[in-house]
């Protein structure tokens, strides 16, 4: 039997960690709503599990998404995760080849060089030694990069690395020391007994020339084991909890578990799955335009995890979704933020009793047009939609022409779901009584909530999609002109609802669309978001000024958007380039 007391710290650490994790995850999952637990049961033995495994390989090990955003940072994350993974796998195989049994204790593979007398060879022993040295050097290089990153984060294309608590710094140091400790322990053993390959063997010979290795070697193995054990014990309370949690999250996500309105165990799992890579910091316009540096998901989630006060951070967010789109872990950042906003309103059905229900339409029109409150502040958009309906000879009814009910989303995104629900019910009634087949809205805010929170049985389209459909069906006569346009895709439309192609098609058909780096889901926030109740109007103006600047750099004749709020917000600061809605461009062509 291969055993020595120095394996104890490692073994105890590992077992404690595993037990702790099992209990933790079990508790979190137990708090899921029933529907999500059913999804887990159904997903467990389906193809989704295989998909998850592939995703875990790509993301948790290779960090393929971080690679796409930032190759150097990706390499660094990859060396750690994938390198360690390979070290474990190859070590295990090596130990199994040597021992010819799958059932050796876990510590055996980890401390193989200690237990394996070097002179005793086995099939492929030199190749194994070479591979293990190769992986170790790969890891050491990763650590070197990480150390450099701490000091020169600019080199990695990041404006700043995430700020750490002292506790996190301790764990970080332990993690960084693990592999150098392994390197030293293996080199010392090799210096005494031989073995190892290009790295540990050469280092061993070198150390032997001036160090009393026989006295030091045993201590080195104790150190290595203790560091591992310590790391395992500290892990659940550090950012490295994200390593196991991300894996769990990927399974749950693929099985169909959803982030709902309440903050629950699934939110906790996501909160803990954040690797604090810091990518979200650089995407956030509150950081870039307003120099607000404590509200980005990496910090917000940390507050949630550490049970620090997060009330301001909860509200100080545009819910623009730029961070969510960039987050390599794919955390539902908007939904989590929203779930932490308290519902402060006292609203009952009576509050809006003065809004009369609409009479059932006798001869229902095919299309029901819902402009939305915001569009009533931009009559140019309503006008253009009316023109478009007329040109295409569409039989439509204008639901909120005389009076309308707010869609409820402005209340909802401030956390006031009760008020929102009352409005939503009211509105749903009015929309249904129209008897139309298609509901067309000009406002992405309404559009998103119609799709997600209402239970409407009719087809819901944003006017960009509807215009695109009319053009495809050839119902709208069209003249392309030389107008140079850039498209600002509203947060709620592009990232929020995935409508990306329709507006681009339309614009390409009626104008000369200039592609920008903000196209599709990379679009900026106009700054007019209703979701942020913390920043003041000057800060909002700063964001929109910067956004206008970014688009103006492409020298368009007009900045085109598809949202009344974006139009107003960008329009108030854009004095040289006009800002128009896509419907206005189409109607005028």
């Amino acid at each position: 039997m291969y055993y020595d007391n120095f394996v104890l710290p490692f073994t105890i650490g590992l077992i404690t960690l595993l037990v702790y994790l099992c209990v933790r995850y079990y508790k979190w999952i137990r708090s899921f709503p029933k529907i999500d637990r059913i999804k887990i049961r159904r997903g467990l033995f389906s193809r989704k599990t295989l998909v998850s495994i592939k995703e875990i390989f790509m993301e948790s090990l290779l960090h393929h998404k971080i690679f796409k955003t930032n190759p150097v940072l990706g390499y660094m994350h990859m060396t750690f995760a994938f390198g360690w993974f390979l070290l474990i796998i190859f070590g295990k195989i090596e130990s199994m080849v040597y021992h010819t049994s799958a059932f050796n204790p876990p510590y055996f593979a980890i401390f193989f060089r200690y237990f394996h007398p070097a002179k005793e060879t086995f099939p492929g022993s030199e190749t194994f030694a070479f591979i293990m040295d190769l992986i170790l050097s790969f890891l050491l290089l990763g650590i070197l990069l990480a150390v450099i990153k701490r000091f020169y984060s600019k080199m990695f294309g990041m404006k700043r690395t995430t700020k750490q608590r002292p506790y996190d710094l301790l764990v970080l140091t332990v993690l960084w020391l693990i592999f150098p400790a392994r390197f030293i322990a293996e080199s010392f053993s090799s210096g005494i007994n031989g073995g190892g390959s290009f790295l540990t063997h050469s280092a061993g010979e070198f150390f032997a020339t001036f160090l009393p290795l026989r006295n030091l070697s045993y201590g080195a193995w104790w150190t290595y084991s203790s560091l591992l054990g310590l790391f395992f014990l500290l892990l659940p309370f550090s950012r490295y909890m994200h390593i196991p949690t991300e894996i769990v999250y990927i399974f749950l996500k693929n099985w169909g578990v959803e982030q709902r309105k309440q903050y629950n165990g699934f939110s906790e799992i996501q909160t803990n799955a954040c690797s604090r890579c810091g990518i979200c910091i650089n995407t956030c316009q509150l950081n870039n335009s307003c120099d607000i540096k404590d509200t980005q998901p990496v910090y917000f989630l940390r507050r949630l995890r550490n049970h620090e006060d997060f009330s301001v951070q909860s509200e100080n967010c545009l819910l623009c979704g730029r961070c969510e789109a960039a987050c390599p872990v794919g955390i539902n950042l908007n939904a989590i933020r929203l779930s932490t906003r308290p519902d402060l309103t006292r609203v009952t059905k009576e509050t809006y009793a003065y809004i009369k229900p609409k009479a059932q339409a006798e001869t229902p029109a095919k299309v029901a047009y819902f402009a939305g409150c915001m569009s009533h502040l931009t009559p140019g958009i309503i006008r253009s939609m009316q023109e478009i309906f007329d040109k295409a000879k569409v039989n439509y009814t204008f639901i909120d022409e005389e009076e309308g009910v707010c869609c409820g989303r402005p209340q909802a995104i401030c956390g006031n779901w009760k008020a929102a629900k009352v409005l939503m019910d009211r509105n749903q009634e009015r929309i249904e009584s129209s008897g139309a087949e298609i509901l067309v809205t000009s406002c992405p805010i309404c559009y998103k909530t119609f799709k997600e929170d209402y239970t409407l049985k009719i087809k819901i389209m944003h006017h960009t999609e509807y215009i695109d459909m009319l053009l495809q069906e050839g119902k709208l006569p069209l003249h392309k002109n030389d107008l140079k346009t850039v498209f600002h895709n509203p947060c709620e439309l592009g990232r929020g609802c995935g409508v990306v192609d329709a507006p681009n098609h339309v614009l390409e058909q009626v104008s000369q669309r200039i592609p920008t780096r903000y196209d599709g889901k990379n679009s900026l926030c106009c700054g007019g978001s209703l979701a942020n109740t913390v920043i003041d109007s000057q800060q909002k103006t700063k964001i929109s000024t910067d956004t206008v600047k970014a688009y103006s750099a492409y020298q368009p004749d007009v900045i085109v958007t598809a949202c009344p709020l974006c139009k107003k917000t960008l329009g108030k600061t854009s004095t040289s380039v006009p800002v128009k809605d896509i419907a206005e461009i189409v109607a005028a062509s």
Partner: protein
Amino acid sequence: MHTVIIIGGGPAGCEAAYQLASDGIQVHLIEKNNETGGNLNNWYQLFPDRKNAQDLNKRLQEQLNHPGITLHLGMEPSRVEKDGQGRFSVSLSDGSLLEGDALLVATGFKTFDAKRKEEYGYGIYENVVTSVDLENMFRNHAIRTSKGDVPRRIGIIHCVGSRDEKVCNFHCSKLCCITGVKQAIELREMLPESEIFCFYMDMRMFGPGYEEMYREAQEKYNIKFIRGRLSEAAENREHQVQVKVEDTLLGRPLRVTLDLMVLLVGMEASNETQGMARELGVKLAPSGFILPLDPHYGNNLTGEKGVFITGCCSAPMNLTDTLNDARSAAVCITRYLNMK
């Protein structure tokens, strides 16, 4: 002899030119249009005495016949430079070069572009006009709707483009309230049968005789003042404007159908004012107007030596104050030149 270059031939520039010339200073007055008078050219009657605006304009023009004044009409300064001795050279758009010992900026204001307040429908609805358009109608003595009818119900909307963070203008334009009162009275005189409303947030009657005029508007001219800010406007099939507004005194939402809606557009620093500030390195206030060195003692001074300001390039002012400010600038400049 000293020379002063004045940029902008509105009331402030004209008056300052005359005052300086009367003190024996050589003046170059640069005006981008082909006539002097600036925004005054668009006005029909003045408040509070209801004198014809063009009489004042003419008087200011006649003063410019002074031999010490050289007028440069239809010109804009394309470049301004200052040398080590504090002398300014100004290149004009026709290529000529002026030299002076001091510079007076009198580039004034522009009225708010009402299209930026899209919810009020200017440029979209047929029967929405601005207060400037209305002055023009007065001059032509024709107050008609787009269809040529006599408007039976008219609404005057205060604070359009002023006191409104949604268009990034936090300042009060100061003159629109009294303009609204004056225009309401003028409307009443021309259309004795019509209903006339003013929708206001606060009535700011700061000048002598203004408050009296406001009282008269209510008592004698039967103008209805409703406290509340317009939220949105829509057009019906008859091209009337339907406005939604909350009567904040009664605490009730209100819906009114208007035949004609007048927007009291506010004042913003003119493009020339902002351009000159940039060119001369002079500071702007958050409102976009030029920031005077001191609000009490240095309201004609800037941080740049030899650069003076007067009139509405530093803040909205009525004509009385503008002309006073021009004279005060002339005094400052004369003293500055004598100390040189």
